[in-house]
């Protein structure tokens, strides 16, 4: 049914949003593209594989955030620390691609190339609820809840806290921020940490939803985050969130209308069109596209 599909799409959209927000945060604050992001997403699912066998479920959520954060810090150190200048942006992007290759390979060496099923959900999580005559797994509530919680928390953090203000200052101009005494390197680390934590969490949620962790998720699901980010506006968190939800619902609608096989195309076609004709994205401002101080 239509409602069912739309709700499904909405939930997918939430996960897209979570990944896209993380990615766009790095772009907006640091003006860098982190191509390891999709692999962190992928690894989040495997965090689930590891932790669900030893820990109760709620701890898995925490584990994903922790592991993701750690991966973010490592990525920043390996792929971005050395390549700071504006001509080094492409080098940094390439370096992060290289790291991504390594992560994927290691995961495949450890778990093989086939998807690894997660232990089945138990208790409340395995049950379903009804809405408007359609049944949904309770997991969907958890996904939406966690996403909203994290996104909301991030928003509050950026708007209200001192650290958040520092991050926003660096986003405006890292040169000015450092002149004001802000430790740009700390901010950089914090941004990578937050961004990757969100990605890993999204990866865990995705794996829970599909019931398995797969190692090629990065290139499919993860790259979509890039596209959504571009659609919503580079560096714009709101845009990433809204974009994610829109794409999630659009894809669900495509399935509903029998165009399922083309659903993969949706997001990329949309992104290409947006980048070429309204490069700032839906919410973005051209400010982001100009040379940054």
């Amino acid at each position, binding site marked *: 049914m239509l409602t069912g599909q739309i709700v499904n799409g909405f939930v997918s959209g939430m996960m897209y949003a979570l990944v896209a927000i993380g990615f766009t945060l790095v772009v907006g604050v640091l003006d*860098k*593209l982190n191509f390891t992001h999709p692999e962190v997403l992928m690894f989040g699912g495997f965090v689930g594989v590891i932790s669900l066998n030893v820990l109760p479920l709620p701890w898995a959520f925490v584990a994903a955030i922790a592991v993701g954060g750690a991966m973010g810090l490592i990525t920043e150190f390996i792929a971005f620390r050395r390549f700071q200048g504006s001509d080094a942006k492409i080098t940094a992007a390439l370096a992060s691609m290289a790291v991504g290759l*390594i992560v994927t390979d*290691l995961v495949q060496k450890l778990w093989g190339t086939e998807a690894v099923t997660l232990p089945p959900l138990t208790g409340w999580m395995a049950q379903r609820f009804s809405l408007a005559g359609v049944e949904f797994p309770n997991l969907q509530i958890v996904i939406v809840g966690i996403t909203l919680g994290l996104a909301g928390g991030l928003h509050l953090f950026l708007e209200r806290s001192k650290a958040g203000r520092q991050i926003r200052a660096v986003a405006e101009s890292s040169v000015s921020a450092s002149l004001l005494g802000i430790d740009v390197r700390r901010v950089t680390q914090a941004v990578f940490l937050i961004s990757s934590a969100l990605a890993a969490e999204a990866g865990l949620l995705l794996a829970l939803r599909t019931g398995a962790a797969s190692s090629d998720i990065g290139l499919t699901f993860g*790259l979509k985050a890039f*596209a959504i980010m571009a659609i919503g506006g580079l560096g714009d968190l709101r845009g990433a969130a809204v974009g994610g939800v829109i794409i999630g619902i659009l894809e669900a609608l495509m399935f509903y209308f029998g165009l399922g096989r083309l659903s993969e195309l949706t997001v*990329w076609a949309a*992104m290409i069109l947006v*980048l070429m004709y309204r490069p700032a994205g839906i919410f973005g401002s051209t400010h982001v596209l100009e040379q940054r101080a």
Partner: protein
Amino acid sequence: MISDQLFFTGINILLAWSVYVSLITGRLSFAQGAVMAIGCYSSGVLTVRFGWPRLPACVAAAVVTAIVAAILGYPALRLRGVYLILVTLGITFCVRVTFENVNYIGGVSGFGGMAGSDLSTVVVAVVVVGSILLWLSLSPLQRSCDAVREDDRVASSLGINVTLIRIMGFSAGAAIAAVAGVLYGHYMNFVRPESFDVLLSIYVVLYVVLGGVNNMFGALLGAVVMTLLPEYFRILSEWRPTVFGLSILILLLFRPMGLLTFRLVTARVRKGPMAALKPLADRVQ
């Protein structure tokens, strides 16, 4: 089989060169998977469905791909480098999904019936393309490309039409990748859209990054090393992505221009063979 490996080495050389040609104008393209697919399928359709002979089909495929690339490139090449990466990755994705949904060319299950290319065809192609590139590297056009790559605003103020140069680079690269696709298809007899995916685009770019971004021999070296070496060292083959990733990382940290950093000088006062090779003094990206 040795001829198999040499064949794929040749294909990878052509693909690496296709990235290189666009790179000399300052634009890094991750669309090789897409343009290779377009070339391959174009030739496939012409030979299998319309009975064209192979050479005209190859030429036609290259031309068609170049035109498509020019059309896509016109708005895309204005984007700043890093965002162009996103768009070209997106193009690769879209082309693959599109081809998977067109039944005329077999959809997901693939397209078969192409035949007739072997090691000697690839060698010919590599020699021909290589000669053209060498000619280019020593011509005034190379200077214009270098100028565009290094400082496009200044190049523009000197009268160089930067957009045109970039589109030409992108299309020429696409044509070369198309030829690689044609040869690939006619060798494999049967191709699937999934062979032309994002990972291929990324790998091919990394060949050039590894080998050296300033001259055509770097791309050649990168392709040869990454295709042939794993065949002779077991461990490289099993851990290919990791070894590759690590090599790239180490390289980017210590020698970001790649293994072969020299640039071929296009004009000099003093004659003599050694004057042509100028190692680069500074590590500018």
